[in-house]
C-alpha cells in the first residue's frame, strides 16, 4: 500500500514536471533555444491566480483563466522583446538572455510580492479518493493533476499533427529558411509557440502550487530545472518524450526518496539522467533526424 501511495505521489509530481517540460520542449523544438525563463513564468502564473483568488475575490476557474491569459501575453512579450532581436545571434547569447529574463522575473516578483512566502489556496476542493477501506488515500489534487496533464498532452499532439498552425510549427522546426520560402510566417509561428508554452506554464504553476502550496518568487526555479531535465531525459523536442520524461522523473524522485534515501533523492534523479544519456544521447524518445517539434 505504501508503494502504491508513493507511486501515485510520483506520478502526480511527474505530471506537473511533464506540463512544464512540454513548454521547454516545444520552444526548443521550434526556436532551437533553451528558454530558461520558463520556470519563472510558472511562478508568475501562480501569483496571478493567487492574486485573483485572494485579493480580487474571483472564483478559482476565473483565476486560472486570468493566469493563462497573462502568462500567454507575457510569453509573447518576452519573445518579442528579448529573443526576437537575437534571432540571428549565437545560441549562447540567447541562452544568457534567457537566464537574464529569468532573474528579471524573479526580482520583479520579489519587488512586487515581497519575500514572505504566501500559502496558495488549492483550486481543487473535491474530497480525497479513498480506496481499500481508507488504507490508500489519493488526494483530489493528484488526480486532477494527472488528468489535466493527460488532456494537455493529447490536445497538444493533435494540435501539432492536425492543425494548420501545427503544420507550420513542424515546418519551422525542420528548416526555418525553407519554411519561410514556402510562405510560412516564421516569426508568427514562433510567437504562437511561446504563447502556448507560457499558457501551459500558467496551468503548471496553478497545479504545482495546489499540490505544494508555498508560493515564493523562487517557486518556479527548482521545478523549472527538474522539468528541463525531464525534457532532456525524454528527448528534447519531442512532445511524448517530455511527457514520459516528466512522469519518470517524478516517479524516480519519489521512489528514490522512499526506498533509497531521502537525502540522495536529487542525486539519484540526476544519476539516472546521466546513465540514460550515456546509453541514448538523444534521450528516451528523441530522434536523431531533425523532425522535432
Amino acid at each position, binding site marked *: 500500500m*505504501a508503494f502504491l*501511495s*508513493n507511486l501515485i*505521489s510520483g506520478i502526480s*509530481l511527474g505530471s506537473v514536471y511533464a506540463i512544464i517540460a512540454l513548454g521547454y520542449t516545444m520552444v526548443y523544438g521550434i526556436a532551437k533555444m533553451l528558454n530558461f525563463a520558463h520556470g519563472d513564468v510558472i511562478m508568475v502564473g501562480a501569483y496571478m491566480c*493567487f492574486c485573483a483568488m*485572494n485579493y480580487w475575490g474571483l472564483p478559482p476557474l476565473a483565476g486560472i483563466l486570468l493566469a493563462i491569459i497573462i502568462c500567454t501575453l507575457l510569453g509573447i512579450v518576452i519573445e518579442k522583446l528579448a529573443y526576437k532581436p537575437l534571432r540571428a545571434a549565437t545560441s549562447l547569447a540567447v541562452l544568457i538572455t534567457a537566464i537574464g529574463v529569468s532573474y528579471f522575473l524573479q526580482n520583479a516578483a*520579489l519587488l512586487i510580492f*515581497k*519575500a*514572505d*512566502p*504566501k*500559502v*496558495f*489556496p488549492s483550486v481543487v476542493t473535491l474530497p*480525497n479518493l479513498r480506496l481499500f477501506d*481508507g488504507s490508500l*488515500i489519493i*488526494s483530489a*489534487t493528484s488526480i486532477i493533476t494527472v488528468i489535466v496533464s493527460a488532456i494537455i498532452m493529447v490536445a497538444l499532439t493533435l494540435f501539432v499533427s492536425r492543425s494548420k498552425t501545427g503544420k507550420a510549427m513542424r515546418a519551422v522546426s525542420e528548416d526555418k529558411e525553407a519554411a519561410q520560402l514556402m510562405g510560412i510566417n516564421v516569426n508568427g509561428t514562433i510567437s504562437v509557440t511561446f504563447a502556448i508554452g507560457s499558457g501551459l506554464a500558467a496551468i503548471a504553476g496553478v497545479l504545482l502550487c495546489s*499540490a*505544494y*502550496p*508555498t*508560493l*515564493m518568487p*523562487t517557486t518556479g526555479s*527548482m*521545478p523549472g530545472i527538474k522539468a528541463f531535465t525531464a525534457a532532456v531525459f525524454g528527448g528534447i523536442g519531442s512532445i511524448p518524450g517530455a511527457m514520459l520524461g516528466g512522469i519518470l522523473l517524478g516517479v524516480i*524522485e*519519489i521512489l528514490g*526518496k*522512499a526506498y533509497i534515501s*531521502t*537525502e540522495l*533523492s*536529487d542525486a539519484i534523479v540526476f544519476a539516472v539522467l546521466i546513465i540514460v544519456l550515456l546509453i541514448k544521447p538523444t534521450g528516451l524518445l528523441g530522434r536523431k533526424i531533425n523532425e522535432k517539434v
Partner: protein
Amino acid sequence: MKLTKALALIMALAMMFALLTGCGGSGNSASAPAEEPAADTAETAETAEAAEPAAEEAAEPAEDVMVFHIGGVGPLTGAAAIYGNAHNNGSQVAVDEINALGGSIQFEYKFEDDEHDPEKSVNAYNALKDWGMQILVGPTTTQPAIAVGAEANADRIFLLTPSASSTDVTDGKDNAFQMCFTDPNQGITAANYIKDNAVGEKVAIIYNNADAYSTGIAQSFTDTAAEIGLEIVSTTTFTDDSANDFSVQLTEAKNAEADLVFLPIYYTPASLILAQAKDMEYAPIFFGVDGMDGILDLEGFDTSLANGVMLMTPFNPWGTDEATANFVDAFVDAYGSKPNQFAADGYDCVWAIYEAIQEAGITPDMSNEEICDALIATFTGGFTFNGTTGNDMTWSANGEVSKAPIVVTIQDDIYVNN
C-alpha cells in the same frame, strides 16, 4: 568562420580582462594616498558633529548625553525576511523607548539587510563598521552569525545575537553572546518534555539536513531520546531544494505508526507538512521548535491546520506579565501586528545592552575594543537581566544564556501555555 569568430571573441575578452586587472592595480595605488585627505575631512566633520551636542547641552543644562552607535544585521528580504524584520522592529521599539527616557545614554541605531546570506552579512557588517558601529545586535540567523562572528571577533566588536541559536555562533568567540537558547538545548528540552508528559509514544523526526539549525536540534533530540528511552520510529530528511514534497516522509512516519512528529525546522516547510498530512488524513501531534513561531502570520495559511501544534518558544505574545504586555502594546502601536519571539529577542537584546552599559560604566568615547572588553566582563560577571523572553537571565563564559524554552500549544490562533 564561426570558429575564428569565437576565437577572436575570446582573445578580445582576454585582452579586456588583462586591461582591467592592470587598471585595478594602478587604481589601488593611486587611491591610497587620496584616502588620507578624505580621512582628514571626516575628522573635521566629526569634530563639527561633536561641537553640535555641546551647543545643545549649553541650551538645556542636562546631564552629559552619550550617544552609542548600535548596529543590527539580519534578513530584511529573502526567504528568512520575517525573522530579520521582526528583529529589526523589536530592536527599534527598544531604541525608541530608551531614547524617549531622555537619560544620559542615547542610542543611534542602524540596520542592514543580509538576505540570510553569510557573504552579504559580512558586507552588511562592514557597511555598519564604516558607519561607526560600536556594538552589534545580530545577525538574526545562524549561518550569517557564524560568518560575521569571526569578523567581529577579529575587530573586537561586541556581538549579541537575538536568535542565532547554534553553538557554532559562540564557540571560540569570547565577544559573541546569545539572547536565545541554543539548538542542543531545544532538542534536549523537547525530548524530555515529550517523555515526561507522555505527549507521544512513537516519535518520527523530519528535519532539513542542509541546515545547521535543523540538524543541530535533530541531533541533540535523537541523543537525548536514546538516553531517556524515547522511541524514535522514523527519521527522514529534506533539503532546501526538495522542500516541496513531503509525502514520502509523512508516509513513512504514518506506516511506522508514529503518534508524534517532531519538526525541528522553520515554519514555511512546516506549513507544507501540515497541509500534506491533512491531505493524507494523517493526524499525529506535531511538535515544533522556535522556528515554528511565525506560522500563524503566513499569508493565506489556513490556521486551522495549526490547531493542536505544539512548539517551544521563549516568548508568548498573549502572555500577561507586565513586561510582555508593555512591549506588545508598543509594538502593536508601531507596526500594527503582534510581535513574535524574534521581535522580543531583538527588543531584549537592546535593553540588555543598555543595562550592561550602565552597569559597566561605558562611555561612547572608548574604543571598540575597550567597550567590547568591558561588556564581556559585565555579561560574564554575574549580570542578570529581566526581559520579555525570560527572567533572571545570566550568561556563561562561552556566551550562552541561561533560560529554558517553554512549550506552548496553538489553539484557535493563539499560543496557550502548557
